[in-house]
């Protein structure tokens, strides 16, 4: 086979997992952000809506990350090892954020009825929901700009402690908040004032992430030539779609069409990620690691694809059932007080 190989196929599957994690778990992190910044006369209702939306699905959304990690070390073990070494600090900090976020949400959701407001955990839930996507975003910046090298003898802050790293960290948080607010617009369709709260938040997040994205492009142009050539090379058409879709999504939010906005905002996340991934193909971690050269032996890749195919047969209908039961027509109208 020329051109696209089995390794490329596996890399594409991993990109889909990353996308699913960003679009689904990203919104859960965003929920934490809005929990932290809940304000105004309906702050309690805002928090309740966030908890009701996240409760049944956040753990399943979180598993996409596990899926991604396992797929990465199965199919590209050396890359997994190199990334874990080079990005030890941002990964460890993000991990602590992920642990605290999940624990804090659960303590709140299931503990509140027993003890009422659970002093530090409410704050921890929000703070950790910012830390985790921020440091994952910064780590992604290090990968995209080509700072993770095969030599290994680099500083522990290489790449991610940079202007672009900071920008992508903030962008990750802003996009997560944007996603969450638009999803919550759909979830609160039965409660117009509450929906208006989330519409304002979504629009604010749209503006902030738009500015950060444009700043990121400028920074890329000035400071990350490798990423710039990826985005303006093979990834250009996706970048253009992203740039065109951005205003559409923001307009849908502004107009208050939650269902269109939900799709458009999720698509924005997808286009941004894919512009980067498609742009840097055939590199997995540029410039030293190509998909082809860092792939595991063929038998492993085949076994992984078969496992995923078989797994999907069970997983897909299960996921459908979960979202069908809890994210159907108008869940907010029926989820009043989830009593597990």
């Amino acid at each position: 086979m020329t051109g696209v190989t089995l390794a490329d196929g596996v890399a594409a599957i991993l990109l889909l997992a990353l996308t699913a994690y960003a679009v689904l778990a990203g919104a859960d992190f965003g929920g934490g952000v809005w929990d932290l910044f809940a304000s105004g006369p309906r702050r309690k209702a805002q928090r309740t809506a966030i908890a009701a939306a996240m409760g049944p699905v956040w753990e399943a959304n979180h598993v996409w990350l596990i899926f991604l990690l396992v797929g990465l070390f199965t199919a590209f073990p050396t890359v997994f090892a190199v990334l874990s070494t080079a990005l030890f600090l941002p990964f460890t900090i993000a991990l602590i954020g992920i642990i605290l976020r999940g624990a804090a949400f659960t303590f709140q959701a299931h503990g509140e009825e027993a003890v009422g407001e659970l002093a530090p955990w409410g704050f921890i839930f929000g703070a950790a929901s910012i830390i985790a996507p921020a440091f994952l975003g910064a780590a992604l910046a290090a990968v995209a700009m080509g700072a993770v090298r095969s030599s290994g003898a680099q500083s522990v802050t290489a790449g991610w402690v940079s202007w672009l790293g900071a920008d992508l960290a903030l962008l990750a948080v802003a996009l997560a908040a944007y996603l969450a607010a638009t999803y919550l617009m759909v979830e609160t369709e039965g409660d117009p004032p509450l929906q208006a709260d989330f519409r304002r938040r979504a629009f604010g997040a749209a503006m902030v992430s738009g500015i950060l994205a444009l700043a990121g492009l400028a920074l890329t142009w000035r400071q990350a030539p490798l990423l710039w050539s990826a985005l303006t090379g093979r990834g250009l058409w996706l970048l253009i779609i992203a740039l065109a879709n951005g205003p559409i999504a923001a307009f849908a939010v502004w107009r208050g069409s939650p269902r269109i906005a939900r799709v458009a905002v999720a698509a924005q996340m997808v286009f941004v990620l894919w512009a980067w991934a498609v742009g840097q193909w055939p590199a997995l971690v540029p410039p030293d690691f190509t998909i082809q050269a860092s792939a595991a032996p063929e038998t492993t890749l085949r076994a992984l694809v078969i496992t995923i195919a078989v797994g999907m047969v069970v997983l897909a209908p299960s996921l459908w059932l979960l979202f069908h039961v809890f994210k159907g027509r108008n869940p907010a109208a029926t989820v009043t007080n989830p009593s597990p």
Partner: protein
Amino acid sequence: MDNVTLSRAIMGTSLGFHIVFAVLGVGIPLLMLAAEGIGLWRHDPVWLALARRWSKAFALIFAIGAVSGTALSFELGLLWPGFMAFSGSIIGLPFSAEGFAFFIEAIFLGLYLYGWDRLGPVAHWLTGVPIAISGAASSVFVVMVNAWMNSPTGYQAVGNRIVRVDPLAAAFNPSTPTEDVHMLVSAYLVSGFAVAAVYAAGFLRGHGDALHRRALPLAMVMAVVASGLAGITGDTSARFVADDQPIKFASQEGLFPTTAGAPLHIGGIPLPNEHRTVLAIEIPHLLSWLLKGDPNATIKGLNDFPRELWPNILIVHFSFEIMVGLGLALGFCGVLYWLLALRRRGPPTDRWMLLALVVAGPASVVTMEAGWFVTEFGRQPWIIYGVMRTSAAATSTPALGPTFAIFLALYAALGLTLARLLLLLAQRERRRAAVDGTRPRP
């Protein structure tokens, strides 16, 4: 501390923390299913109330298990990049399968927890079935990886480069059958005794209502069946280890010279520098007889192996003694409970029996952790037995000391908060039951 020690400390703490929730994640869903199933079958609201109550506690336990499990999948790379670069492609298959099992578990847990009032009774019960199955499957898959570290098979390497992989042969390596089954039954053992301890404590404090009279026997069924199976599979495991990793076997038995007609050491302190175990109760010929069925059979001792390949004999031997000793005590406790229950025609409420059950809960956790100590410390100095040294696998990052401190604090905070919440939840349920009258809310 050096990086290898710190990496082991962080990994060991993370695993030791996670596994408590992991095993409860295997066993409690089965108890929930049983309780809800009986409740539906007999139209008994008390059984249903019990299942609902367990599901609340389980929501907390599962979430902590999920986040601490995430820590592990990161830490494989963060702490052991050398190990993962070498073995990722070999052991990826069971890990991916475990990923799917975890996915299914998380999805149906969402349905089960939030579906009590949204799904029909039978549909709700059915959403619990995949939780119980995938919980057990997760354990089976993930222990395959540890088994492979004990018996690395299914690959060809040239130097550090993997050139051929047979993922199925790696997953179903020689250690898999014994290790997997022993761990699975141990998970049910811990779940059974842990739940039983909670209700035994309730009885002791005078809360022995209808709910307690159903919960305790159900948990004790699981506990006693699992202890029997754990004994049998433990014996098989020990025999396998004697063949497969004779040095681990000699360490756990504290046997230094290769001996014909080897004695069994009960207790005692192995003194590696003096090549002997002192202060042990020695039963002549018993080890040879137990292992080979021949009281004069020869058993390989530690002296036959180069000193640099010895694990920490003291830890391995103590852990083994604790596991076997407590394991036997737990089995005895389970049998005693049922003998009393049969005589009393109901859950025995004798104070000493209940006290023993309260102790048995944490003791079962200690037993399981001690078992992992035997496996893990006994495999040292190897991370992949006979192939890769632990020292060659660890990360070189300079930040491990603070990382260890942070994780210790993190796990302490999570553990304490969880314990506090579970207690408060139980108190509130009791108050609610008291308000509703003698009948707990269905």
